[in-house]
């Protein structure tokens, strides 16, 4: 996969009659196969940056390029298709659909990209097994309300990986979990990132996650203040 490139990206949100700048002229390159975390205090622009990279929002200025595709140039449908095929999402509150079983939740992205039914079933089984939801009992038939927080986040991770994305974006994925479960989820994501060759990009305050990341991007007041890469390189 090509690197994620951001060039002079700005985003301002309206608040009553004034504009609140969330990102100010960000220039950033994120490597395609890493385990990268965006960190910074609340209001620093982490979630906004994730949303722009994930094609969930559009910048006011600048360009975002993911998997070789300039997202600014895509229409709404094309952007939706791009998200379905190339991106996976893990949310802080899991965001599973409550009327679907765990297996059906994992199946949603596969349906969106038109995967045949037999392949879907096989892929769902693989993923549920990969996130540890088949042993000792099969939890795939349970609805989210019947699962623990850790189990729900495992389902969410399986769903994020279902369509074989190039990049998984995770907004505070361990924030709603106790430290033990958070550590387990982190280990799981790390393992899957390596096994499946998928890039992971997080926003987080979690020290465990910061420690586990390959690269760390520090944000403050909508600007990148530093980038730490696993080789020890530090950029401002």
């Amino acid at each position: 996969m090509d690197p994620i490139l951001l060039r002079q990206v700005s985003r301002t949100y309206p608040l009553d009659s004034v504009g609140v700048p969330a990102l100010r002229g960000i220039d950033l390159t994120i490597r395609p196969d890493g385990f990268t975390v965006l960190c910074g205090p609340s209001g620093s622009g982490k979630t906004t940056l994730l949303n722009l990279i994930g094609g969930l929002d559009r910048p006011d200025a600048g360009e975002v390029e993911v998997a070789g595709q300039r997202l600014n140039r895509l229409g709404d449908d094309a952007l939706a298709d791009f998200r379905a095929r190339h991106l996976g999402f893990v949310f802080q509150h899991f965001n599973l659909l409550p009327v679907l079983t765990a297996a059906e939740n994992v199946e949603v992205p596969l349906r969106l990209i038109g995967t045949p039914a037999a392949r879907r079933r096989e892929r769902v089984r693989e993923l549920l097994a990969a996130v540890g939801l088949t042993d000792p009992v099969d939890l795939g038939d349970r609805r989210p309300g019947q699962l623990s927080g850790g189990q729900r986040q495992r389902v969410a991770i399986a769903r994020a990986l279902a369509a074989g994305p190039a990049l998984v974006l995770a907004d505070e994925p361990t924030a709603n979990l106790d430290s033990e479960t958070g550590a387990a989820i982190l280990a799981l994501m790390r393992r899957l990132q390596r096994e499946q060759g998928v890039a992971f990009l997080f926003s987080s305050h979690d020290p465990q996650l910061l420690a586990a990341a390959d690269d760390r991007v520090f944000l403050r007041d909508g600007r990148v203040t530093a980038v730490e890469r696993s080789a020890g390189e530090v950029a401002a």
Partner: protein
Amino acid sequence: MNTVDLALRNLLRNRRRSLATLLAMVIGLSATLLFGGYAGNTMSAMETGYVQLHGHLQLQRRDHFLYGSGNPAAYGIADYPRLIEQIRRDPVLAPLLTVVTPKLQLGGIAGHFSAAHSTNVASVGVVAEEQAVLRDWDDYGAASYAPPMSLRGTPADSVVIGTGVARKLQLCRELGVQPCPAPARAVTAVTAAPTASSPALPADIAALSAQEARPAAAASTPGSTRIEMLAATVQGAPNVVGLNVVKAENFGLKEFDDSFTVLHLAQAQRLVYGAAEPQVTAIQLQLHHTAQMPAARARLQQLLDGEWTPRDLALVDFQTLAPVYGQTLEFFDSVFGFMATLIGVIVLFTVGNTMSMAVLERTTEIGTLRALGLRQRGIRRLFVTEGLLLGLAGTALGTLAALGLAALINRSGLSWTPPGYVYAYPLQVRVWGAGSMLAGSAAGLIAVAGLSAWWPARRAARLQIVDALRHA
């Protein structure tokens, strides 16, 4: 898990709200269908009654319908037996016909000498056997209000009169008419002698009356049902025939019942045409089914425009002969349309409100689905499908409720008296078999439900993903 499955599961999430929405649709649809069924049955009964009375089509002399009522001299159809025979043998018309029969319409005065009472009457002369066939028509299985043809098999001087005519002629006791209270004040007797309020009859009419009255008076013993009927002949001279009332029948509408009499065609022709060539004022054609009218009309029009042109005839259908049929149809249509619109608006807002609540409650889910790659149209489709499913369920349950209630009403024995009528009709609701009404109402309700969901669905689809995901 496809769109329909997902929509169904979402509807079942909030069962109470979905049930309340369904209930509004079920009540609305069943009320509309019951009214439509009632109106449909009434129209079928009316159509049956008018077809039994007039046939589907009538051949009359041009303008008879507008100007010729009570003037058989000017609007008579000569050589009518040949026309009837031609119709019966026509290869197009013959298979369509149940009966084709002549009718003579005339006006006159009926007098009951023994009680010294008289009244104006509107009479028809008919072929009793053929009228009996006419009255057997019942294409809709409707409750038939036509009494059996009492004139059938009676002597040539027989007459059937309305119960109102019997009351006016003081024949209630003899004919067993009930109710028939004695009039509060004395009714002026018909006599040939001049009085202050009634001038003397012309000498010729008095002589005729006396001539007819002699045998009648002779027969006017207590219990006698002899009456005399006076009418003008084609030459303008008065003519009187003595008739024996075989039955008093209730002819429905009071105005009609108070003046209508039916006698044998030959007797009516004798009264109007005397020794001249007998004629009729109409040839009635009754078809097996009303739907055959266009075909029969086309063929008759062909004959009218061709070999019958010199006869100066016109074709009149039963809707024209009974304008109240079309007026009633329009009335029911307008009430049905009003009700359907009202209920449609209620359903529109009820389903719209349900869907708006659903969008509000599921904003985060909408954001999640959009983030995963569902297009805006997919979100719209999901919510519109939910609306359509509600519409489908409401249609199915509403139709079942209407059918059940209709069956209950039809077996309840309830009755009502329509305005202007003198006796009660059974209250019947015809929902089962009313295919076009059922299909139209169902399609309408489903469309309204889908339309109601469209606006909230559009709003859901246009939500900003990041705003939707932030929604608490």
